[in-house]
Structure formats: C-alpha cells, structure tokens
C-alpha cells in the first residue's frame, strides 16, 4: 500500500515537472543568425529549465507575425519595424527580449557606379528586401528626401530575391546585404572589398532593432506563460552567450539542424562570427533608447510613414528583469 502511494505520488510529481512546450517561430531558414536557440536546445539549456522547445524554421512565405496570430507559435523572432507595423494592424506584439544589440543591415554598392555617399543614390537602382524588411530602408530614404516611387530624382527600387545576383548581374547599383550573410556572398562571388562601397544602417544613424523575441500581449498577462517565457529567455540567452564564445561549435550545431542539407560549414562558421558581433553588446534586455530611436526613425517616414503614431506598451522588461537576476 505504501509502495503504491509513493508510486502515485512520484507519478503526480513527475506530472507537475513535465516539460512545458514552447514553440519558437524563426524569421528565416535555419542558419547561424539563430544559433543561440539551436545551441540552447542542443546543449540542453532549455531542458534544464524544464522546457520542451520546438524551433520552426521560417521561409520566404512565412510571416512570423501571421504565424503567431494564427496560434502556430508562442514566441517569434522578428525585426522591430515589422513587429510595430503588425501592432498597428491590430496584432498586439510585445518585445520581451532583444538578443541582437546592433543592426547588421547595410547597402552594398559597386564602386564602378560612382556612388560614394548616400546623396549619390539619386537616379540609381537599389535592391531591397520586402516582406516586412523594407521598413528600415523606406524610412532611411525618406530621411534622405529621396522618392521611392520611381519619379525623377528619386531612386528606383527593386524587390530583390533571396540572393546577391542583382549586384553581380549589374541589375542594381546597390543591394541590401546583412553583414553576416549576403555581403560575404558578394565577396565569395569574386568581387574584392575594394570594388565595393558599403553603407551600414548603424553608421548612417538609421539603424532599427533587428532580431528580437516577441509574444502576444494578452498571453503575457497569464503568470504561467510569463514564467515560461522567463525560463525561455534565460535559456536562450545562455545559448547565445555560449554561441559567442564557441562560434565554430555553434555553427556545427546549426548545420546539424539544417534539414535541407544544402548549407555549408564555410558559410555558417563565418556567419556565426559576424552574428556574434551583433549579439555581443546584449544580455537580452532591450535597450529602451535604441527602441525609441527605432520608433522615431519609423515615424519620420514623410508622406508614407511605416507607423503613424508612437506605440504604447510595445516592449516590456518584465521578462528580462526576472530572467537576468
């Protein structure tokens, strides 16, 4: 009898200690940009917190904001401009942590086009990503006073695909690149850095916050969910810091998680090295000044601003305050 009771008690305890499920939706395909989460999973950091995390890779047709709205994820990796735009559309997203301290976005131009400063963009063709990633570019252009509708004196905007071909084929004078990815593809393709001119959004003072963790506001009022997110952020940041210190190992972990089998070690290791530079300044807590800069930049969009009014409650330090104690 006693044995039975103990057994039942143990079973009950095991029940309460059962791993909590968390689904994370990434912004793009499996790559070192998301190394921290894969490392946290592979190294058992999530498990230590009692979490069972499912990482869903993204793709060209997946808007993380829509996935979370549809209940397909608990937490998403998204860029702040897209998240704020979604918030204005009625999807109450809240930033709970910001692993990326600085922006890795830049415009890379061929030197032979004669571009030396942003003022030279006029009447040139620029490649830009859309799908929610165009907001930083649009607000930069409107600050420069360059029209993006193709009118004279403005810039011609191309929606670039998923690679750097427009620059190599000279279909565009400049294309959008990330420090950790596309820029190196241009170099790999055989163009020397001397033949390129790059403009980092960070240097131009138009940087907006990139990969952050976002959840739905109403779910956050549930203490159980909040607790789960505290654990999740804590473990994720542990993963990020581990990845920063062991970039090669982190890259290999990412590679193991790449189910397409098409990614290469070379790319991922280099990407990890560059991503580490962006996450280096962050312990996970959002720098409110940077967030306000992002908002200001987005609001200054001239006739067609990305967001029309400053958001309220779009970020909270409640999670990181507890997670980083």
């Amino acid at each position, binding site marked *: 009898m006693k044995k039975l009771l103990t057994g039942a008690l143990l079973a009950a305890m095991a029940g309460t200690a059962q791993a909590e499920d968390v689904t994370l939706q990434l912004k793009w395909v499996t790559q070192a940009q998301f190394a921290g989460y894969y490392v946290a999973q592979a190294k058992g950091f999530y498990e230590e917190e009692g979490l069972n995390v499912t990482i869903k890779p993204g793709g060209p047709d997946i808007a993380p904001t829509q996935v979370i709205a549809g209940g397909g994820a608990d937490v998403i990796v998204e860029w702040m401009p897209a998240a704020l735009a979604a918030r204005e559309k009625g*999807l109450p997203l809240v930033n709970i942590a910001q692993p990326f301290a600085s922006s890795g976005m830049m415009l890379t131009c061929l030197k032979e086009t004669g571009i030396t400063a942003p003022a030279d963009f006029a009447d040139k063709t620029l490649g830009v990503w859309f799908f*929610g990633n165009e907001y930083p570019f649009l607000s930069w252009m409107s600050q420069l006073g360059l029209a993006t509708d193709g009118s004279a004196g403005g810039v011609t905007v191309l929606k670039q695909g998923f690679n750097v071909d427009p620059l190599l084929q000279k*279909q565009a004078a400049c294309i959008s690149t990330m420090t950790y990815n596309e820029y190196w593809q241009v170099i790999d393709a055989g163009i020397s850095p001397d033949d390129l001119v790059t403009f980092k959004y960070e240097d131009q003072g138009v940087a907006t916050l990139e990969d952050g963790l976002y959840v739905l506001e109403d779910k956050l009022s549930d203490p159980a969910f909040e607790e789960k997110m505290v654990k999740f952020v804590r473990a994720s940041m542990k993963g990020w810091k581990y990845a920063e210190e062991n970039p090669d190992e982190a890259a290999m972990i990412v590679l193991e998680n790449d189910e397409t089998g098409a990614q290469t070690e070379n790319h991922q290791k280099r990407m990890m090295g560059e991503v580490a530079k962006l996450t280096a300044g962050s312990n996970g807590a959002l720098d409110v000044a940077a967030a306000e800069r992002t908002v200001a930049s987005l609001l200054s969009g001239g006739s067609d601003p990305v967001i029309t009014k400053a958001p309220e409650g779009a970020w909270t330090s409640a999670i990181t305050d507890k997670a980083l104690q």
Partner: protein
Amino acid sequence: MMWLVGAVVFWLAAWAVNAAVARSALGRTRGGRVFVPVLFGVTVLVLWEGVVRGFGVQPVILPPPSLIGAKIAGSAGVLWADFVQTVVKGALSGFVIGVGAAFVVAVAIDRVPVLQRGLLPIGNFVAALPIVGLAPILVMWFGFDWQSKAAVVVVMVFFPVLVNLVAGLQASERMQRDLMATWGAGYWQTLVKLRLPAAMPFFFNGVKIATTLALIGAIVAEFFGSPIVGMGFRISTEVGRLGLDMVWAEIAVAALAGSVFYGAVTVVERWVTFWHPSQRH
C-alpha cells in the same frame, strides 16, 4: 452566433433556389446560366462573412469579404497598376508567345517525322517538369521587369500546348485521311481541312491549362525579384505587413482576370470546335 445561423440559413435557401432554377426552364436561358453560379458565389461570401464574424476570427488571419471589398474599392489605382504589370505585360505576352511558338513548332515537326520522333519524347518530358523551379534562374537572366516573367510564362505554356497539339494532329481517323487522299488532297489541304480541325479539341485542352499556368507563372516569378509593382510583389509584401485585406484584394483581381481569360478561350473554343460532341448540351 446570429451571424453563423444567418449564414447557414442563407446557404440552405440559396441552394434550394439554385436547384429549382437549374431544373426549371429558367436554367436553360442565358440569365439562368449566369444567375446560378453568381448565387453560389454570393453564398460562399455570405458563409465566409458569417463564419469570420461568428467565430471572431482576427482580420490578420482571414479578413471578412466586406473588408476586402472596401479595400478593393479604396485602392483601385494600385490594383490596376499591378494588373497591368503582371497580367498584361507578364502573363499575356508570355502566353501569346508561348502558344504561338508551340503551334508553329507542332506544325513544323509534323512534317518531319525524324524531328517528331526526337522532339516529342523530350517535349513530353519537359511538359511535366516543375518549370516553376526555373523562375529564379530566368529572373537572373532576363532581369527584374516583366520580361523575365513573360519568359517564365513562355516556358510554362509552351510544352503542354505542344504535346496536346501533336497528339491532336494524330487524332483524325484513318478512314477520314484515306477519304481526303482519294479526293486528291495534298498535305497542306489535309492539314488545314481535316487534321488541324480534328486536333482543335486537344489543342484547346492544352490552351486552357496554359491560361491558368500563365497567371501562376507570372506571379510566382515576381516572388524571386521584381520592380515594386505587380500582383506577386504586392501579395508577398502585404503578407509580410499583415495587410491581408490587400492580399485578398489581389487574389480577387487575379481570380477575375483569370476567369475572363479562361472565359475568352472557352468562347473561342466553342466557336472553333462547334462540331465536337462535348459542345452539345
């Protein structure tokens, strides 16, 4: 709840009306033929509106038709520009080039049995390929504007039409061909008077498939790079912005354009193959 019940009641009532109209003499008239599918479409919209409102589905998941309608009315200019870019410049020009080329090639290789034997298996094979996969490559080759979209469409529509037409050219019966021969008809006369007409039902099967492929091809290609106008561009951008009402507005325009396109082909088909049993009702 009211919304749901109302929608279901409307559905049942509409179905009863449709069934009655279809059975009655009214169903044979031109008006009846338009009325029934329209009522069916309206029913679907009412159901949609009812379900979205009844279950409180968020507009960022599925906007109700009323919201989409408002969006269409409110952004006619943008929709028109996208339509011209994608349908007129990309899909239509590609379609005309592709179908035209397929027709010429089919007739040309009909005369040369060696080519037919060599090209047909390859053509059959290529017709089945997922040409969509070529889209990123063709965009790289032909640039970002509509030319690359037209190129994708050409490749997509060429082979289905070719294969169908070549098969159709073999469709006339031996006896009919012998009859033509006894009348002393030459190759071209037999081709124009017997074999091409006999091939038309097959040809139009291919062309009808090509109409739907043309739109898909033009839109998919915009996915891999485009200027900042076009239906594919707008759709992929607005999904990222959660502008789902705009996405559905574009879908509605695409559906409308595609239907008109298909309808036009059907009218031509009816006119050309009036003798075929399938045209009798």
